[in-house]
């Protein structure tokens, strides 16, 4: 079976906030510390989900990403984990696209690659946290949409997903083809293997540019929105409670909270 995983290169979410700077022109947050970007964490979970299917079945995994200024070491990580192919859709036209345009560009790219049996995406990207692109992509492709998976099982033409819900789970079922979004509850992504790293170094990604795609990124003017970014100030005057030692600090804190009627 053919699986496509959608992945995004993002600013490392572990970047200290003091390193954040707003690029007014592109309306993006950048790091002034020069630390490299990373693969979006939930997308690594998506790669892991695809690899688990490949472990048990005959499957070919293609990773697709839309963006600009890709860092090749970052984008090749899925290959070093065990994915088969990498398609990069790159160019200045794809810089900081809104979710609908991103979904349209993915849709056109996936049509060119060939419609897969299964598409797996991370539940959201750690930069814009929109949680929107996979669901729109499913609408555009008219694929069955199964969200927030912590487990995926396949049986012939049927897919079952264990979906995370508050205080429990649901079992969803549909036929293929389908699009699944995965959440971190799926479990830690595997580490790249030495063999994987070797094959990633030899593997060249397939590159699509704007002109290779039959896509009009202006057609959604209807939902056009104007965006401004800011970095919030987070300051409250924290009153530190300090005793002669940690034990007394703990006791004093309890008394303080009692005094305030908080406990």
């Amino acid at each position, binding site marked *: 079976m053919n699986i496509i995983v959608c992945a995004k290169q993002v600013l490392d979410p572990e970047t200290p906030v003091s390193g954040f700077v707003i690029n007014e022109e592109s309306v993006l947050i950048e790091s002034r510390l020069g630390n490299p970007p990373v693969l979006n964490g939930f997308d690594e979970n998506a790669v892991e989900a695809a690899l688990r299917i490949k472990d048990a079945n005959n499957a070919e995994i293609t990773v697709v990403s839309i963006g600009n200024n890709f860092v090749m070491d970052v984008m090749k990580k899925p290959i070093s984990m065990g994915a088969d192919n990498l398609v990069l859709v790159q160019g200045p036209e794809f810089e900081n696209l809104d979710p609908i345009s991103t979904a349209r560009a993915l849709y056109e790219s996936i049509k060119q690659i060939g419609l897969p049996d299964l598409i797996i995406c991370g539940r959201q990207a750690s930069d814009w*946290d929109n949680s929107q692109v996979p*669901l729109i992509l499913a609408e555009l492709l008219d694929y069955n949409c199964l969200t927030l998976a912590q487990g995926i099982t396949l049986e012939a033409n049927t897919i079952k997903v264990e979906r995370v819900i508050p205080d429990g789970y649901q079992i969803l079922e549909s036929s293929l083809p389908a699009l699944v979004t995965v959440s971190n509850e799926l479990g830690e992504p595997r580490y790249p293997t030495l063999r994987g790293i070797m094959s990633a170094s030899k593997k060249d990604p397939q590159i699509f540019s704007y002109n290779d795609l039959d896509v009009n990124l202006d057609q959604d003017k209807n939902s056009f929105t104007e965006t401004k970014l800011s970095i919030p100030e987070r300051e409250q005057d924290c*009153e530190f409670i300090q005793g002669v030692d940690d034990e007394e600090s703990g006791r004093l804190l309890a008394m303080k909270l009692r005094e305030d009627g908080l*406990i």
Partner: protein
Amino acid sequence: MSHTAVIIEQGHHNVDETTQQILSLANSLGDETSIVIFQPDNANLSEKFTNLNCDQIYALKIDSVHGTTLPDDIVISSLEWFCKDKNVDLILITKSAWSLNIAPRLAFRNKAAYAHDCIDIKIQGNNLSCVRPVYGGNALAQISIPADTPKVATVRAGVGQISEKVSNKIVPVIELEPEIKAKDLRVKILKTVTEAPEGPDLSKAEIVVAGGRGLGGPEPFEKLRELARVLGGAVGASRAACDAGWIDHNFQIGLTGKTVTPNVYLSFGISGASQHMAGCSGSRNIVSINSDKNANIFKDSKYGVVGDWNIVLPAFTAAARELVNEN
């Protein structure tokens, strides 16, 4: 004349603070406000909503063949039909694990602009201005959507004032039967399993005791449970602690876990990354114990102790037990 509709999560039929807050937000944004509920055809749920301040309640009657937990496809098709039928300008839904699956597809189908997880929404000139945290809460994006564009927004729990209930007005309940086609249902729900964790409901608890990466293993959570029992509170955790397997993901608080709004949020060994604060910044009093005096969480805290939780926690628990038992 603009029409705002507040969608109540399917299966949630208790009018809680969150519902009143989102309704009051809706009333501040448009001329006409509706509440939309999903009603199985054998039940009458609208009564609970009739003392709220809105123009009407639409009860969408859904064939019981779809079960008590409606599949996403059925919810989306019903709302798509409703928005067209009633000319809705703005849809508001509380951000939750449920609305996450519904709102983006509904917005796309109705060619609506979508603003996710908003912490502020207001009219600015002719536009609707929505503020939403991005980059895990480390930055804020202000989105401006023109008046004539249809809109869908999800709103973070705890945003907005509590609206006044009305007793002297009878809000009309209008039952509607959405047009759903057989082919709309594509993903079935075979089973829903929920197991409420012991103690008070985390998302409604007045006191939350939460632990993070700094606790270093599963055993300390037993001590947090003990403290929670003393205080009558609920236990929570950061995503790092859940991903490490120290505690079940049902206790995860943060951007992609639960949102809590307690009176007191007691944190032990949590650094306070924005992704975590997104789930607890609505707490009225944050109290933090951390060994790093520069930990981010102190910036959001009312009280802090810089120290080793191994020693502070038992001392705090013992003192709290005495104080609470004094009464």
